[in-house]
């Protein structure tokens, strides 16, 4: 049973990590806590549902939906954050405008799709087959999700480390003014950052929708708060931190249930985060670690 629980934790953690990475990227670069991230997570899942329902094969639907997430991220920045950047408004004000956008996205989704839960596959069939490997059981869908999450995070790491865009992003994260002076196109870099972060968040949404065969208006709210705990745990702005934080929280949650402490699950998650913060006030991998990605 322990092996199964650990596997459960691993799968859960992968999706958490993917979601958290988008959160932390935006914070690292712009000092903004984007509370519309969960709404984009949800919107991408709905987009994938519509595409799949229209007959688009799942892998393609996944990619398109992730791109839709990315585009929504760029729009979000244009509407909610860019106007405030010019006014030098601090970190609190953009947080509120992101809440406004999140509400709008939610209202639009409700208008289009209604309040009912939507499903990729009906009849309780799994989109994949079940595999029994010794003491553990999992499905091909879960495996695909895990692999997809890991691949995406590795891809992000590569982009940040080895591409010009990645260097621009890290430069802006370190010192916005210096980066501009060095010739970095600020607005384009920021747009690219939002595209990447939101498409990763959107990807997490599609994968979550596929994993539990459930797309609902409020599918983002449990992960929204946990995402905060994860990025703090890992250290704001640290991609590696977000990944490791995601797996840690996935493990903590699963173990909490395994030890019969399910009611205390959220308290334990935040308790762990709290303790680590008290010991290391900037999280496991520290702030501004985006430089090293």
């Amino acid at each position, binding site marked *: 049973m322990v092996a199964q629980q650990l596997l459960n934790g691993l799968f859960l953690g992968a999706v958490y990590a993917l979601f958290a990475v988008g959160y932390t990227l935006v914070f690292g670069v712009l000092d903004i806590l984007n509370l519309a991230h969960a709404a984009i997570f949800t919107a991408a899942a709905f987009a994938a549902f519509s595409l799949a329902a229209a007959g688009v094969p799942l892998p393609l639907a996944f990619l398109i939906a992730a791109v839709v997430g990315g585009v929504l991220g760029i729009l979000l920045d244009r509407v909610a954050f860019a106007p405030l950047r010019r006014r030098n408004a601090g970190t609190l004000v953009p947080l509120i405008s992101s809440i406004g956008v999140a509400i709008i996205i939610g209202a639009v989704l409700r208008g289009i799709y209604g309040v009912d839960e939507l499903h990729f596959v009906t009849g309780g069939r*799994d989109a994949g087959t079940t595999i029994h490997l010794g003491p553990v059981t999992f499905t091909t869908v879960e495996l695909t999700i895990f692999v997809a999450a890991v691949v995406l995070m590795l891809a992000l790491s590569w982009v940040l480390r080895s591409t010009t865009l990645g260097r621009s992003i890290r430069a802006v994260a370190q010192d916005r003014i210096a980066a501009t002076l060095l010739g970095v196109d600020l607005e384009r870099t920021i747009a690219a950052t939002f595209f990447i972060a939101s498409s990763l968040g959107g990807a997490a949404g599609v994968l979550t929708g596929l994993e539990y065969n459930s797309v609902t208006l409020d599918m983002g709210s449990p992960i929204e708060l946990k995402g905060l705990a994860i990025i703090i745990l890992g250290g704001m702005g640290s991609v590696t931190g977000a990944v490791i934080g995601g797996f840690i929280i996935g493990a903590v949650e699963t173990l909490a249930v395994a030890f019969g402490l399910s009611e205390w699950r959220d308290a334990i998650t935040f308790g762990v985060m709290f303790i680590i913060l008290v010991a290391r006030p900037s999280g496991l991998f520290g702030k501004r670690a985006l430089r090293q990605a």
Partner: protein
Amino acid sequence: MNRSSLSTLAFIAIVALATPSFAASKGPAAGKTVHVGVIADVTGGAGVYGTPQKNAYELANDDLKSGKLDAGGANLSFDVQDAASDGAQVVNILQKFMTDGSTAMVLGPTLSGEAFKAYPIAARASYPVMGTSTTAEGVTAIGPSVFRDSLAESQVIPTTVKRTHDKWHYKTAAVIYGDDNAFTKTDGDIFTRELKSAGVDVVDTETFHQKDTDFQPALTRIESKHPDVIAIGALFPEATKIIQQAGKLGIKAHMIGGNGLNAPDMYSVAGPAAQGTVVGAAWYSGAKYPSNLEFVKAYAAKYGKGPDQFAAQSYAAAQIVAYLVAHGSTTKEEMLTGLRNVRVIQTVLGPIGFDSNRDAKSSPVILSIVKDGFSYFH
């Protein structure tokens, strides 16, 4: 004509006059306008429960206009207001209805917690309110003007446990329930209590939160204890996932559940693993009560999918109100008197009345999930 044939004639005349006719009959309130308010969470976290309620009342408004629902010639309409799953709004809407001078009664709100916040205000003013989905313990005890047409979990679960135990004679059980929602927690508590008093050994108890999607850790724990039966205290979104994931993990235990599982697409969402799950409910979509099949058809035609229990209990409330109005209740005092004195009303839930606690007096129905929906549990 001799006396006995005269009385026979009189008897026949009375029966003929008393038989309800399709065209709206002329009751004592004919020609009067009656407003009834409804508080429902159409948007927000509870939107998935409040929207079917709103749908049912809009259907009722249509049926009142066409005469299908008989209000005795009175101009009755339901005014549905969205509380957006916000307790503060529920209270404000109730106060508005109570003081607008024309609303005779209020139906709703959607959640028991909201009822606990709002009903005391109505109770203090002896203003009649009726819940259609507020099934927690103690709701009707708030005051003598608080009624409820939805069977409480405590009225249904004992029957569920008894009937399944009589049939399957199980010895061990596990209970899994939502610990952050009053409804699902009540389910969990009552299931545990009833199972124990039936002599069943509750070998494991697991909890989850609303909106959880991954139940595999909990189900893995349950399976390690090998219970004969798993009792599920959950609402639809979580229930379908629990059942499906249990199937995926190869769990073979019988499953039983409360009102929350009474939704039309249980099988189509949860899949073959749901076959044979027993649900104790307040309403069965296939029950042959006079207005029920017609209601199911009309609702599906208007909204593209069949009604669930939330919709049925709301439509039943509309039928109860229409009955009261047809018998002369137009003001809040008359509504209150009407509710207190009514014996039995025919609704989509079957014949329904109120007991001395103002709770619904109606029989629970024990159902089994099958491929096309539900069937009676035998």
